[in-house]
Protein backbone atom coordinates (compact mmCIF):
# COMPACT_ATOMS: atom_id res chain seq x y z
CA UNK A 1 0.00 0.00 0.00
CA UNK A 2 1.48 3.29 -1.05
CA UNK A 3 0.44 6.49 0.66
CA UNK A 4 2.89 8.67 -1.24
CA UNK A 5 0.94 11.46 -2.88
CA UNK A 6 1.11 11.22 -6.64
CA UNK A 7 0.53 14.17 -8.88
CA UNK A 8 -2.88 15.72 -8.83
CA UNK A 9 -5.49 13.18 -9.99
CA UNK A 10 -6.48 15.71 -12.61
CA UNK A 11 -9.84 17.09 -13.55
CA UNK A 12 -12.75 15.12 -12.21
CA UNK A 13 -14.88 13.48 -14.85
CA UNK A 14 -18.63 13.87 -14.86
CA UNK A 15 -18.86 10.31 -13.59
CA UNK A 16 -16.55 11.15 -10.68
CA UNK A 17 -18.59 14.23 -9.87
CA UNK A 18 -21.82 12.28 -9.95
CA UNK A 19 -20.40 9.64 -7.62
CA UNK A 20 -19.00 12.22 -5.21
CA UNK A 21 -22.25 14.16 -4.99
CA UNK A 22 -24.60 11.19 -4.75
CA UNK A 23 -27.24 11.70 -2.11
CA UNK A 24 -26.90 8.78 0.30
CA UNK A 25 -29.34 9.95 2.91
CA UNK A 26 -31.13 8.60 4.86
CA UNK A 27 -28.14 6.91 6.41
CA UNK A 28 -27.89 3.14 6.42
CA UNK A 29 -24.71 1.26 7.26
CA UNK A 30 -23.32 -1.67 5.28
CA UNK A 31 -24.09 -3.96 8.21
CA UNK A 32 -27.70 -2.80 8.29
CA UNK A 33 -27.89 -3.20 4.53
CA UNK A 34 -26.70 -6.79 4.85
CA UNK A 35 -29.24 -7.45 7.59
CA UNK A 36 -32.09 -6.20 5.42
CA UNK A 37 -30.91 -7.56 2.11
CA UNK A 38 -32.87 -10.82 2.20
CA UNK A 39 -36.21 -9.23 3.06
CA UNK A 40 -35.54 -6.39 0.60
CA UNK A 41 -34.77 -8.81 -2.23
CA UNK A 42 -37.84 -10.91 -1.54
CA UNK A 43 -40.05 -7.82 -1.40
CA UNK A 44 -38.69 -6.61 -4.74
CA UNK A 45 -39.19 -9.99 -6.37
CA UNK A 46 -42.77 -10.03 -5.09
CA UNK A 47 -43.41 -6.43 -6.12
CA UNK A 48 -40.93 -4.59 -8.37
CA UNK A 49 -42.47 -1.32 -7.19
CA UNK A 50 -41.48 -2.02 -3.59
CA UNK A 51 -39.69 0.94 -2.04
CA UNK A 52 -37.27 1.13 0.85
CA UNK A 53 -35.79 4.61 0.88
CA UNK A 54 -32.85 3.84 3.14
CA UNK A 55 -31.90 0.69 1.24
CA UNK A 56 -32.20 2.48 -2.08
CA UNK A 57 -29.99 5.32 -0.82
CA UNK A 58 -27.38 2.89 0.46
CA UNK A 59 -27.32 0.87 -2.74
CA UNK A 60 -26.89 4.08 -4.75
CA UNK A 61 -23.81 4.88 -2.73
CA UNK A 62 -22.18 1.49 -2.13
CA UNK A 63 -21.20 -0.37 -5.28
CA UNK A 64 -20.31 -3.57 -3.42
CA UNK A 65 -23.61 -3.86 -1.57
CA UNK A 66 -25.44 -2.91 -4.76
CA UNK A 67 -23.80 -5.72 -6.72
CA UNK A 68 -24.64 -8.22 -4.01
CA UNK A 69 -28.26 -7.10 -3.75
CA UNK A 70 -28.69 -7.30 -7.53
CA UNK A 71 -27.15 -10.74 -7.51
CA UNK A 72 -29.45 -11.98 -4.77
CA UNK A 73 -32.50 -10.66 -6.60
CA UNK A 74 -31.34 -12.32 -9.81
CA UNK A 75 -30.79 -15.59 -7.97
CA UNK A 76 -34.30 -15.48 -6.49
CA UNK A 77 -35.73 -14.80 -9.92
CA UNK A 78 -33.88 -17.71 -11.48
CA UNK A 79 -36.39 -20.45 -12.27
Amino acid sequence: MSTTPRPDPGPLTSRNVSALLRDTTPWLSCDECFERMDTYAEALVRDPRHQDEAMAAHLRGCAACDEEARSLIQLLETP
Partner: protein
Amino acid sequence: MTAVSRDEQRSNASLVSPPSEVQEPMDWVSALAGEGPQQAVALRELHALMIRAAAHQVWRMRPALPDPSPAAVDVIVNQAADEAMTALLGKLHTFEGRSRFTTWAFKFAILQAATEVRRLQWQHREVELRDFDMPNAPAHEHPELYAEGNDLAAAVAAAMRQVLTPYQRRIAIALLVDGVPIDVLADRLGTNRGALYKTLHDVRVRLRAELTANGYLPVPRGSSPRRASSDSTSRVSPTPTAGTP
Protein backbone atom coordinates in the same frame (compact mmCIF):
# COMPACT_ATOMS: atom_id res chain seq x y z
CA MET B 1 -19.12 -31.78 -10.20
CA THR B 2 -17.95 -28.36 -11.30
CA ALA B 3 -19.23 -24.99 -10.20
CA VAL B 4 -20.71 -24.62 -13.65
CA SER B 5 -22.88 -27.62 -13.36
CA ARG B 6 -23.80 -26.74 -9.80
CA ASP B 7 -24.89 -23.30 -10.87
CA GLU B 8 -26.91 -24.66 -13.69
CA GLN B 9 -28.42 -27.34 -11.57
CA ARG B 10 -31.91 -26.48 -10.47
CA SER B 11 -32.27 -29.52 -8.31
CA ASN B 12 -34.76 -28.39 -5.73
CA ALA B 13 -37.05 -25.65 -6.93
CA SER B 14 -38.83 -25.43 -3.61
CA LEU B 15 -35.64 -24.16 -1.99
CA VAL B 16 -34.94 -21.40 -4.44
CA SER B 17 -38.25 -20.36 -5.92
CA PRO B 18 -39.38 -16.75 -5.53
CA PRO B 19 -40.71 -15.90 -2.11
CA SER B 20 -44.27 -16.92 -1.52
CA GLU B 21 -46.57 -17.92 1.25
CA VAL B 22 -45.44 -21.52 0.86
CA GLN B 23 -43.94 -22.97 4.02
CA GLU B 24 -40.25 -23.77 4.11
CA PRO B 25 -39.65 -27.46 3.36
CA MET B 26 -37.93 -27.89 6.70
CA ASP B 27 -37.26 -26.11 9.95
CA TRP B 28 -33.71 -25.21 9.06
CA VAL B 29 -32.74 -23.68 12.37
CA SER B 30 -33.89 -26.66 14.42
CA ALA B 31 -32.34 -29.10 12.00
CA LEU B 32 -29.01 -27.32 11.87
CA ALA B 33 -28.85 -26.71 15.59
CA GLY B 34 -29.88 -30.27 16.39
CA GLU B 35 -27.94 -33.48 16.36
CA GLY B 36 -27.77 -36.76 14.55
CA PRO B 37 -28.82 -37.69 11.03
CA GLN B 38 -31.25 -34.78 10.69
CA GLN B 39 -28.46 -32.30 11.30
CA ALA B 40 -26.16 -34.09 8.88
CA VAL B 41 -28.82 -33.90 6.17
CA ALA B 42 -29.48 -30.22 6.88
CA LEU B 43 -25.76 -29.39 6.77
CA ARG B 44 -25.41 -31.18 3.46
CA GLU B 45 -28.38 -29.37 1.97
CA LEU B 46 -27.20 -26.05 3.32
CA HIS B 47 -23.79 -26.57 1.75
CA ALA B 48 -25.45 -27.26 -1.58
CA LEU B 49 -27.34 -23.99 -1.26
CA MET B 50 -24.16 -22.12 -0.48
CA ILE B 51 -22.42 -23.66 -3.46
CA ARG B 52 -25.27 -22.61 -5.68
CA ALA B 53 -25.28 -18.99 -4.49
CA ALA B 54 -21.49 -18.70 -4.51
CA ALA B 55 -21.33 -20.09 -8.04
CA HIS B 56 -24.00 -17.66 -9.14
CA GLN B 57 -21.97 -14.75 -7.76
CA VAL B 58 -18.59 -15.85 -9.04
CA TRP B 59 -19.97 -16.41 -12.52
CA ARG B 60 -21.52 -12.95 -12.49
CA MET B 61 -18.09 -11.48 -11.77
CA ARG B 62 -16.05 -14.00 -13.72
CA PRO B 63 -14.63 -11.51 -16.27
CA ALA B 64 -12.88 -9.73 -13.39
CA LEU B 65 -10.93 -12.83 -12.38
CA PRO B 66 -7.25 -13.11 -13.30
CA ASP B 67 -7.88 -16.79 -14.03
CA PRO B 68 -11.47 -17.27 -15.19
CA SER B 69 -11.08 -20.94 -16.07
CA PRO B 70 -13.83 -23.28 -14.85
CA ALA B 71 -11.33 -25.08 -12.62
CA ALA B 72 -10.25 -21.83 -10.95
CA VAL B 73 -13.86 -20.75 -10.58
CA ASP B 74 -14.68 -24.07 -8.95
CA VAL B 75 -11.98 -23.57 -6.33
CA ILE B 76 -13.20 -20.07 -5.52
CA VAL B 77 -16.81 -21.20 -5.32
CA ASN B 78 -16.07 -24.06 -2.95
CA GLN B 79 -13.86 -21.93 -0.73
CA ALA B 80 -16.43 -19.14 -0.57
CA ALA B 81 -19.23 -21.61 0.15
CA ASP B 82 -17.27 -23.17 3.00
CA GLU B 83 -16.44 -19.81 4.56
CA ALA B 84 -19.96 -18.52 4.11
CA MET B 85 -21.37 -21.61 5.75
CA THR B 86 -19.14 -21.08 8.77
CA ALA B 87 -20.25 -17.45 8.97
CA LEU B 88 -23.91 -18.43 8.68
CA LEU B 89 -23.74 -21.11 11.35
CA GLY B 90 -22.15 -18.57 13.68
CA LYS B 91 -25.17 -16.34 13.20
CA LEU B 92 -27.84 -19.02 13.06
CA HIS B 93 -29.38 -17.78 16.30
CA THR B 94 -30.02 -14.38 14.70
CA PHE B 95 -32.32 -15.73 11.98
CA GLU B 96 -35.76 -14.31 12.75
CA GLY B 97 -37.76 -15.77 9.89
CA ARG B 98 -38.49 -12.43 8.22
CA SER B 99 -37.43 -13.98 4.92
CA ARG B 100 -37.19 -17.53 3.72
CA PHE B 101 -34.23 -19.27 5.30
CA THR B 102 -32.83 -20.03 1.86
CA THR B 103 -32.81 -16.35 0.90
CA TRP B 104 -31.15 -15.50 4.20
CA ALA B 105 -28.53 -18.18 3.52
CA PHE B 106 -27.88 -17.05 -0.04
CA LYS B 107 -26.76 -13.60 1.02
CA PHE B 108 -23.91 -15.03 3.10
CA ALA B 109 -22.55 -16.93 0.12
CA ILE B 110 -23.00 -14.00 -2.23
CA LEU B 111 -21.14 -11.66 0.11
CA GLN B 112 -18.29 -14.10 0.62
CA ALA B 113 -17.94 -14.93 -3.07
CA ALA B 114 -18.07 -11.31 -4.22
CA THR B 115 -15.50 -10.27 -1.66
CA GLU B 116 -13.18 -13.07 -2.73
CA VAL B 117 -13.47 -12.19 -6.42
CA ARG B 118 -12.65 -8.56 -5.70
CA ARG B 119 -9.66 -9.62 -3.60
CA LEU B 120 -8.34 -11.83 -6.37
CA GLN B 121 -8.94 -9.12 -8.95
CA TRP B 122 -6.68 -6.73 -7.03
CA GLN B 123 -4.24 -9.12 -5.39
CA HIS B 124 -1.35 -8.11 -7.62
CA ARG B 125 -2.29 -4.46 -7.93
CA GLU B 126 -0.94 -1.76 -5.71
CA VAL B 127 -3.46 0.54 -4.13
CA GLU B 128 -2.34 4.14 -3.90
CA LEU B 129 -3.92 6.68 -1.63
CA ARG B 130 -3.75 9.81 -3.72
CA ASP B 131 -4.48 13.31 -2.63
CA PHE B 132 -4.72 16.50 -4.55
CA ASP B 133 -1.17 17.82 -4.33
CA MET B 134 -2.13 21.45 -4.77
CA PRO B 135 -4.37 22.02 -1.78
CA ASN B 136 -4.90 25.71 -2.36
CA ALA B 137 -4.61 25.92 -6.10
CA PRO B 138 -6.57 28.89 -7.37
CA ALA B 139 -9.14 28.14 -9.99
CA HIS B 140 -7.25 29.90 -12.77
CA GLU B 141 -4.55 27.24 -12.57
CA HIS B 142 -7.07 24.83 -14.10
CA PRO B 143 -8.41 26.89 -16.97
CA GLU B 144 -9.32 23.79 -18.92
CA LEU B 145 -12.08 23.03 -16.45
CA TYR B 146 -13.71 26.36 -17.08
CA ALA B 147 -12.91 26.44 -20.77
CA GLU B 148 -14.72 23.13 -21.11
CA GLY B 149 -17.65 24.43 -19.17
CA ASN B 150 -16.94 21.95 -16.43
CA ASP B 151 -17.70 24.41 -13.73
CA LEU B 152 -19.26 21.85 -11.42
CA ALA B 153 -16.19 19.59 -11.55
CA ALA B 154 -13.97 22.51 -10.59
CA ALA B 155 -16.33 23.44 -7.77
CA VAL B 156 -16.30 19.87 -6.47
CA ALA B 157 -12.51 19.78 -6.56
CA ALA B 158 -12.35 23.09 -4.71
CA ALA B 159 -14.84 21.83 -2.13
CA MET B 160 -12.80 18.67 -1.65
CA ARG B 161 -9.82 20.82 -0.74
CA GLN B 162 -11.80 23.08 1.52
CA VAL B 163 -14.17 20.88 3.51
CA LEU B 164 -12.59 17.43 3.51
CA THR B 165 -9.73 16.16 5.61
CA PRO B 166 -6.75 14.65 3.76
CA TYR B 167 -7.92 11.21 4.89
CA GLN B 168 -11.42 11.79 3.54
CA ARG B 169 -10.01 13.02 0.22
CA ARG B 170 -7.76 9.99 -0.15
CA ILE B 171 -10.57 7.56 0.62
CA ALA B 172 -12.96 9.33 -1.75
CA ILE B 173 -10.39 9.43 -4.57
CA ALA B 174 -9.45 5.77 -4.10
CA LEU B 175 -13.05 4.56 -4.08
CA LEU B 176 -14.79 6.93 -6.46
CA VAL B 177 -12.06 8.13 -8.84
CA ASP B 178 -9.59 5.24 -8.96
CA GLY B 179 -12.29 2.59 -8.58
CA VAL B 180 -10.67 0.54 -5.84
CA PRO B 181 -13.30 -1.88 -4.48
CA ILE B 182 -14.33 -1.01 -0.96
CA ASP B 183 -13.47 -4.48 0.39
CA VAL B 184 -10.00 -4.31 -1.13
CA LEU B 185 -9.30 -0.88 0.29
CA ALA B 186 -10.62 -1.94 3.68
CA ASP B 187 -8.34 -4.96 3.66
CA ARG B 188 -5.27 -2.92 2.71
CA LEU B 189 -6.03 -0.33 5.39
CA GLY B 190 -6.85 -2.89 8.08
CA THR B 191 -10.40 -1.63 8.46
CA ASN B 192 -13.78 -2.82 7.23
CA ARG B 193 -16.35 -2.01 4.57
CA GLY B 194 -18.68 -0.31 7.02
CA ALA B 195 -16.09 2.12 8.31
CA LEU B 196 -15.05 3.13 4.80
CA TYR B 197 -18.65 3.55 3.70
CA LYS B 198 -19.23 5.81 6.71
CA THR B 199 -16.28 7.93 5.61
CA LEU B 200 -17.68 8.09 2.10
CA HIS B 201 -21.11 9.03 3.39
CA ASP B 202 -19.60 11.87 5.44
CA VAL B 203 -17.65 13.02 2.38
CA ARG B 204 -20.82 13.21 0.34
CA VAL B 205 -22.73 15.03 3.06
CA ARG B 206 -19.98 17.64 3.37
CA LEU B 207 -19.56 18.10 -0.35
CA ARG B 208 -23.30 18.40 -0.95
CA ALA B 209 -23.62 20.95 1.85
CA GLU B 210 -20.75 23.02 0.44
CA LEU B 211 -22.01 22.83 -3.14
CA THR B 212 -25.51 23.72 -1.98
CA ALA B 213 -24.19 26.70 -0.03
CA ASN B 214 -22.32 27.84 -3.14
CA GLY B 215 -25.39 27.55 -5.33
CA TYR B 216 -24.27 24.53 -7.36
CA LEU B 217 -26.93 22.22 -5.94
CA PRO B 218 -30.56 23.02 -5.20
CA VAL B 219 -31.49 23.57 -1.59
CA PRO B 220 -33.28 20.46 -0.29
CA ARG B 221 -36.92 21.07 0.47
CA GLY B 222 -37.51 21.91 4.10
CA SER B 223 -33.98 23.09 4.82
CA SER B 224 -31.93 26.22 4.45
CA PRO B 225 -28.52 26.39 2.75
CA ARG B 226 -25.63 26.28 5.13
CA ARG B 227 -21.94 25.72 5.10
CA ALA B 228 -20.64 22.27 5.89
CA SER B 229 -19.69 22.29 9.52
CA SER B 230 -17.64 19.97 11.65
CA ASP B 231 -20.74 18.50 13.25
CA SER B 232 -22.78 18.24 10.08
CA THR B 233 -22.25 14.52 9.71
CA SER B 234 -23.22 13.57 13.22
CA ARG B 235 -26.69 14.91 12.59
CA VAL B 236 -27.06 12.61 9.65
CA SER B 237 -25.22 9.51 10.75
CA PRO B 238 -26.19 7.78 13.96
CA THR B 239 -22.94 5.84 14.21
CA PRO B 240 -20.20 8.44 14.71
CA THR B 241 -17.76 5.85 16.06
CA ALA B 242 -17.63 4.15 12.67
CA GLY B 243 -16.27 7.23 10.96
CA THR B 244 -12.94 8.59 10.05
CA PRO B 245 -9.95 8.21 12.32
